[in-house]
């Protein structure tokens, strides 16, 4: 067991997947020689060779579209899109192609593949590089959407995603790549897709988030406990689709209040869906509206303004208190 960052944990998962199964290949822009712009694929080319770890031309639809064909014909492509903001180029290949192979072929074919991509703000990147677009894919049947928030889950979820018989969009919170280390087992292991994680138990309110927001939620829970004697439960969704409604709804039935946090712009973000589900399934338990703490309805700002644009702990705490005092 070693202490690894998320970046290292992901690298270890990829190496083990490549090691275990000849049909696994890694492809994308700069994933080979360069080891990826975030070094997530560092060293893999040297170890597995250029037929397994492939620098592609600069064409996102090409990367995803060829991966669909590769997957149908028996390979297990793990494709990297350099930043989630460039996923727009691949929307057709993801939403109308990869996600429908099984459906379109009445189950004869499938496209088990993983699309890995960093996302989220806070690292002072240029425009389009920090956008959170997960909601577009939670609106897309046939693909799973997964996002870890710590090194342990990162490795286990990525290995589970590679095993999965369906396409998985695997969102990596880039701000957390090297933010901290955790104990990560050396051997391969899986963290099951489709399950949310109650990372902190609490009685007064449920704070719900994923990926880059999870550390915020934990800090907010600490602060709520320390300064306001509020006991907050924290749920890390980990898998956005298929959503673990049960864990969420059961929690809110107990706490009777919830705040959902995401970096994506507010309108039609996945937070809206979660609020809609909770109020539908736990209406009679609710003591306050489900509040959302989110990005504003503007394009992600040039980085000068990003710190204030992004949700922060203060805001989560204040919103939780609004719910408590409602």
């Amino acid at each position, binding site marked *: 067991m070693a202490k690894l960052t998320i970046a290292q944990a992901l690298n270890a998962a990829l190496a083990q997947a490549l090691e275990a199964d000849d049909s696994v290949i890694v492809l994308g822009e700069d994933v080979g020689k360069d080891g990826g712009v975030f070094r997530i694929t560092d060293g893999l080319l040297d170890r597995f060779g250029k037929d397994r770890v492939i620098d592609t031309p600069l064409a996102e639809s090409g990367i995803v579209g*060829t991966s669909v064909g590769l997957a149908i014909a028996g390979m297990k492509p793990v494709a990297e899109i350099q930043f989630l903001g460039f996923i727009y180029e691949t929307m057709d290949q993801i939403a109308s192609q990869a996600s429908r192979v099984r459906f379109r072929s009445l189950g004869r074919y499938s496209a088990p593949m993983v699309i890995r991509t960093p996302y989220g703000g806070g690292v002072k990147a240029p425009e389009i590089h920090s956008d959170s677009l997960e909601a577009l894919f939670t609106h897309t049947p046939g693909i799973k959407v997964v996002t870890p928030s710590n090194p342990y889950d990162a490795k286990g979820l990525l290995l589970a995603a590679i095993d999965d018989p369906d396409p998985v969009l695997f969102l990596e919170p880039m701000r957390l790549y090297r933010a901290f280390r955790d104990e990560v087992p050396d051997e391969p292991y899986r963290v099951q897709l489709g399950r949310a994680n109650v990372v902190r138990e609490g009685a007064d309110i449920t704070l719900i988030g994923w990926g880059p927001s999870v550390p915020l939620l934990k800090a907010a829970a600490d602060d709520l406990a320390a300064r306001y004697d509020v006991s907050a439960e924290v749920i890390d969704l980990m898998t956005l689709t298929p959503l673990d409604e049960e864990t969420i709804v059961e929690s809110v039935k107990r706490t009777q209040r919830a705040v959902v946090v995401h970096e994506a712009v507010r309108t039609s973000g996945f937070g809206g869906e979660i609020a809609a589900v909770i109020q539908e399934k736990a209406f009679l338990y609710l003591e306050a509206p489900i509040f959302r703490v989110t990005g504003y309805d503007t394009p992600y700002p040039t980085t000068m303004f990003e710190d204030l644009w992004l949700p922060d702990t203060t805001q989560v705490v204040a919103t939780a208190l609004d719910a408590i005092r409602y």
Partner: protein
Amino acid sequence: MGEASELFPLIVRMDEEGELVGDLGLLSKQDLVDIYREMRLLRAFDERAWNLQRQGVIGTYAPYKGQEAAQLGATKPLHESDWLVPTYRDWAAGYVRGVPVTHGLFFSKGHPRVGDVPKSAKVLPAQVVIGAQTLHGVGVAWATKLRNENAATIVTFGDGSTSEGDVHEAMNFASVFSVPLIFFCENNQWAISVPIERQMRAKTIAQRALAYDMEGFRVDGNDYVAVYNLVSELADRARRGEGPFLVEAVTYRLGAHTTADDPSKYRVVADEERWAKRDPIARLEKFLLRESLIDEERILAVDAAAKEWVDEVLADFKAELSISSSVLFQNVYAEMPQSLANQFDHYQKRAKEVRA
């Protein structure tokens, strides 16, 4: 350099009068008798499908009439281990590979069985997003290469498709990774109402190959002999690792774009008539008659066989229409998630109420 097109002279072996202007190559005269029969059957099916739509039995149908030589020439040379990644108009091509031609009817009927391609056929189900399948073709070919499967893949697409960015990305990926793929463009001159001259300024599609240092070919797509021999050679070469290749098969959409389309809005009868004379079946018939490989009697026998075959096909079609709505919910993921299972229950309750 307006003359890139001159690098791609049209390859013809049998002209529209059914005269051989080249040799038969890999084909025997008997092969041509067989292929004539098969094309006639498929033509009869296509025409019947058109009528079925007119009678309201099926929905919108996209006829392949006129493109039989291209579709059969592209697929007959394939081996069992080769793959076909077709465009949505390629029911004749799919048929050659073992996909029941009824799938054309399922498609137009909006019936899920359209996707139920036999796995042994190594054919992907048709999809409608123009050009998107070319990338799948590259991926499939690449997979066979990585797995040393010694297989060729052929991906088909229309002239209009060549304007889509995906097709460019496909050709670039294919050439960079030297995949064993044939890009087979059925240039039927039209993308719905847009003629090829408005689709691009280039005079040929074959010359697109120059952009990728890929070998390109322009072949008379209504000449089965030419298409068959070209694709045979290229598939062999692809299996030997010399791909990818681009083939422009020059043909014509004799019918409407689909049964919902009215070509009189945008094209002139003279043009249609000119192309009707180049019909791939007619020229084969002329050749076979001249060579006494068939006679009028034999033609009548083929007529009868075609009708019979189409009747059988329709019987199969009707027999296979019943299908459970569960396919809708079962094939979204390998395992149905809980929330979707709940939705399925809801759907089934509604279905019951409606039936009641």
